[in-house]
């Protein structure tokens, strides 16, 4: 009788482990570089090529100058 109870409780404990979710450190997910773009979207600014790091950087530099440097805008 005692053996049966021990086996039954052992099985219950073993089954309980099946309900546990893994809690390991998964780490940070990979993040793609911004110049890879967002795909097809109505919000994408034109003037640069998706996937081309150089053109993306130029786009941001030009945008910073035009949008934020009011001295250069005033002289145009």
């Amino acid at each position, binding site marked *: 009788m005692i053996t049966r109870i021990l086996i039954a409780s052992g099985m219950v404990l073993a089954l309980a482990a099946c309900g546990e979710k893994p809690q390991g450190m998964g780490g940070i*997910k990979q993040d793609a570089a911004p110049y890879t773009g967002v795909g097809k979207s109505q919000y994408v600014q034109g003037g640069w090529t998706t996937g081309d790091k150089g053109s993306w950087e130029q786009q941001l530099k030009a945008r910073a*100058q035009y949008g934020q*440097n009011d001295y250069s805008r005033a002289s145009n």
Partner: protein
Amino acid sequence: MARMKFICDAERCIECNGCVTACKNEHEVPWGVNRRRVVTLNDGVPGEKSISVACMHCSDAPCMAVCPVNCFYRTDEGVVLHDKDVCIGCGYCSYACPFGAPQFPSQGTFGVRGKMDKCTFCAGGPEEHGSQTEFEKYGRNRLAEGKLPACAEMCSTKALLAGDGDTVADIFRSRVLRRGKGAEVWGWGTAYGSSNGGKA
């Protein structure tokens, strides 16, 4: 390209809170969470100065150093981002940050903070760029759309500058030369290293 940086020109900021509104609107930031805010020093006293404050994406970010689960990462552009799936909402980053950038939604029961939220330099997070998941967790990814942060682009007086460190430093330098004052860049030394001073 150098790294992405923010500069707030205290000589120009008029405390309109346009940057705060632009940020909240662009990313649909929930009530009670302010990724950006405007702080006024000596409020009401003649000569008061206002500055727009958010995550400065520090070169040696204290939040990254203290995070017990290493949820932070820095992109090649120098933008400090975090993974909300890894964040446990402990709040250590909030204590470590000299700018008070980390925000917590406090929606959980028993005063649980919830996942940390902060300025992303409009660069989203570790989800598919432009996806709904990225938008819901981190907001819009304007950098991947070829744009600059909404707060700076919406700033009416162009007090808040954002973008490539060399470019924004050049813009600020030309202003200082023209007006002959206001060379102090608030938070620059703390965020990007005092040895650099006002340089990029």
